């Protein structure tokens, strides 16, 4: 799983942001190499954000590519008032929602969606660690999680996944969703209440 900061974990947030600002300035002047560095720096988290919303590897790759293309062609209009990462993840979330709106269904992950590489990773986890699950178990778990999250609207679901799965902070989520921090906290609190209640009900029904 991608780390919240995929590269330069030792870098502080400020230093990283300053480095991004410089790269953005160069990219705005038409420096393609600078943009490529930005892509390499942020691709992990763009994948993580899109993966939290979409699940199918093909969709996530397509969306991630679209996001970076969009970013490249609109980077001249980006005024750097927000962090580049926030701006990029905002584009990612909006692109994902657009895709879901077009399809009107939330795609679940099927075995066919797994790349060979992922399947191999899961298999080796199974062989290696005691916490590891096999591929079909993983898919089952994923579908179960999807069912639990089904009681949430798209925004709340995205917030919860960004927070609990991708490890974003409340401030980062607020920036991405265009909300204030308090609203994000309130919505997370309510989303957790609903999901936890659903899980408890299912467990009670199953006699666990």
């Amino acid at each position, binding site marked *: *799983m*991608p780390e919240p900061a995929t590269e330069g974990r030792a870098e502080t947030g400020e230093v990283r942001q300053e480095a991004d600002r410089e790269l953005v300035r160069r990219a705005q002047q038409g420096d*393609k190499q600078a*943009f*490529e560095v930005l*892509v*390499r720096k942020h*691709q*992990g988290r*763009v*994948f*993580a954000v*899109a*993966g*939290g919303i979409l699940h199918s*590897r093909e969709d*996530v*790759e397509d969306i*991630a*590519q679209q996001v*970076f*293309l969009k970013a*490249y*062609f609109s980077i001249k209009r980006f005024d750097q008032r927000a962090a580049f990462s926030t701006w990029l993840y905002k584009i990612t979330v909006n692109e994902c929602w657009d895709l879901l709106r077009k399809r009107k269904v939330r795609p679940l*992950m099927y075995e066919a969606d797994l790349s060979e*590489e*992922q399947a191999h990773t899961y298999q080796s*986890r199974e062989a290696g660690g005691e916490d590891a*699950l096999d591929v079909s178990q*993983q898919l089952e*778990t*994923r579908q179960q*999680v999807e069912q*639990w999250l089904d009681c949430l609207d798209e925004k709340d679901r995205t917030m*919860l*996944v960004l*927070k*609990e*799965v*991708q*490890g974003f902070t*409340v401030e980062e989520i607020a920036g991405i969703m265009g909300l*204030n921090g*308090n*609203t994000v*906290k*309130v*919505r*997370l*609190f*309510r*989303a*957790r*209440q609903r*999901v*936890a*209640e659903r*899980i*408890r009900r299912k467990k009670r029904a199953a006699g666990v």
Partner: protein
Amino acid sequence: MSETRRMGRPECDEVLNELEELKAEELNSGEVLGALTGGSKRHAVGCEDCRSAVDDFVTTREALWPMRAMALEAGPWFAARVMADVRAAENEIEEKKEGLWISVRRLAPRLVAFAALLLVLGGTWAMELRRRESATGQVEVRQAEGLFENAPSAQLNDDILATAAEGTRP
């Protein structure tokens, strides 16, 4: 903003704020409670709302935990593919611009011919208009001249009146 967590007490809000700041690794409720600061921990233990908030927090985290292991990663080729896409998109834009220029150049002889035709037609029409205007102008001048030539002069009229007045005098 009208949205609140409906927990009421400021201590509860503090507990909830601290929960949001917790690292993902603090998983079970014992660990979560242990990670809270002294005051918040004491409050959370005694407050039913906070305890159920901590339960919800832990239940949700545990439920979503497997998703972390399934997160998708970008392949090593991804950035290169994005840059290739960028170049392709730029080429497409260039081709579109060039395509416009090529079609303008292809249409150029027709445009020139059309412009020449317009020029000839416009010139003919303008000359015809001018010829007609000058013809009507000559007629008007001639008519005006005739009018002044035939009109009796004021002196002659005076003479007539004077002659008539002389004739009636005793």
